Structure formats: structure tokens, C-alpha cells
């Protein structure tokens, strides 16, 4: 099973990097960019039998800091439990 975990800063948590990207886009002439949030994507290559619950546990324990971040899990191929 392959899974893709997307980790984003929670709404309400200031994202200075996203804000810097927004400014840079504006400076390049891309008007109308009203907000940018930057996150990270973590791809997991998992042995047979791994479940979504396993990935959730990984997110809770290590991959995301739930004080400041939220996460979403996407199973990338068939056979995902």
C-alpha cells in the first residue's frame, strides 16, 4: 500500500512562509492571489496489511504536530484497507 499524507498548518495558525510566497507572486505580477498556505506531502510505501488506522497513528505520533497542524491521508493504490 502506498499512502500520501498531506500536512498543513491549521487555520488560524499564521503561516509566514505562505505569506512570503504570496508577496513574491504579487511582486512577479500575479495579481489576485489572496492567500497562500504552504504545507508538506509525505509519501509512505507500506508493507502488505498496513491499514489507514496505522497511518493515522503515524500522523498522530510523529508526522503531524496536532497542536499546530492538521493532516489528511490519501491511499494511493488499491488494496488499501
Amino acid at each position: 500500500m502506498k499512502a500520501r499524507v498531506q500536512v498543513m498548518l491549521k487555520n488560524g495558525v499564521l503561516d509566514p512562509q505562505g505569506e512570503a510566497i504570496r508577496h513574491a507572486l504579487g511582486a512577479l505580477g500575479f495579481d489576485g492571489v489572496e492567500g497562500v498556505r504552504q504545507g508538506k506531502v509525505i509519501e509512505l510505501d507500506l508493507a502488505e496489511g498496513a491499514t489507514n488506522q496505522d497511518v493515522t497513528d503515524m500522523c498522530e505520533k510523529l508526522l503531524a504536530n496536532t497542536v499546530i497542524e492538521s493532516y489528511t491521508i490519501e491511499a494511493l493504490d488499491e488494496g488499501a484497507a
Partner: protein
Amino acid sequence: MHAAVVVFPGSNCDRDLAVAFKAAGMKVSMVWHKDTDIPQGVDIIGVPGGFSFGDYLRCGAIAANSPICQSVAAHAARGGYVLGICNGFQVLTETGLLPGALLRNAGLKYICKTVGLRVATQDSAFTQGYGLNDLINIPIAHHDGNYFADDDTIARLQGEDRVAFTYEANPNGARADIAGVLSDNRRVLGMMPHPERAADAGHGGTDGQALFRALTETLATA
């Protein structure tokens, strides 16, 4: 009085912290992150600054899950003292020993300079050597020192007098100007500024000395 300093791959303030503990009169043991036990009789554990595990994933996240951190948590749960400085503060928030998290500096830049701190409480072994509202000068050196916690947590920290230090001129966007916080039993302190870098006349400032001396006095009478 016996201090242990935890050393992770990428720690770079571990020896400075050991020197500061020793200068205040403590015996110091260095503890490698793969060790599982803290030496017998340790009163305080120092979690030093640096870039543990290269700051991969999030600052302090990998270190917080290393074997030694379970022993640090157990030491804290027994009522032991813990001092986390800079990356050590990040590690302590990642382990859950302290509330909140450290975000990227609001200005996005790494900042290395001496800043003014207000002593926000005298009620801890770490801060009793200062006067309330004393202004002290302590260096900071961080990229991710922007303290964040939700409104309820900030209110609780303030209500319980658990903010140890605040920035006189907020350098990094930290909520409520918070530079350091205490645990609910007041025996765990995490702070972004480096008192161990202001503990000897050769450093150009000695405002950090009082923290280590007060700690030694408390431990000597404990």
C-alpha cells in the same frame, strides 16, 4: 547536585550548557540520545540547543521520539527538573512536556542577537534569582522560535503565572511575547533564549548566571 545533559546528533549547545551547570556548582553527566536511562541521582536534565536530527520533519520532532526522551518524561513525571533551551524547548513541546509549539519566525529569517527579556515570574527554581520584571539581556539564535498556543492555552499559562520570560521587543512573532514557559508543577522550563551563552564574563554578558545559580541553590536544599 547532579545535572544530565542530553546529546542528540546535531546538538551544538550541549557542552556550553554543561559548562554553565558546572560553573554553578553542579556535577554534570552527558547522556547520548540512544541511552535509555538517566544516571542515578540526577536532579535536573538539560535539553540543549542545536539542530537535533537536522531539524528534519519539524524542529525537535525526531528527538522527541528518541529513547532517551521517554526517560526525560519519566524524570519529569517523578517531579524532576528539566531545562530545555532553544532546540531543547522545541523538543519539550514535541514531547508534550510543555504546551504549545514553536513556529517559523514571523519574519522568516534566522535571528542571532542579544535581546532584552522581562522576568515574568519569580515563582520557579529557574527564575527566583531574578527580580520580578527585571530586564535581562540574553542571546537568541533561532529560526523557529515563534511561540504558538491557542487562546485558551495562552490564557491558562498567563492565569497560572507560567510565563517565565517575555521579549521586551518581540523578535519572532511569539504570541503574547512569550520567550519561555513553565510546566504546571513549575519544574520544567522551556525557553528560546540561551542563558548558557550569557553565563561568563567572556561571553560579553552574565545575565544568565542567576538562572543556573538559583537552580543549584534550590537543588541543594531540596
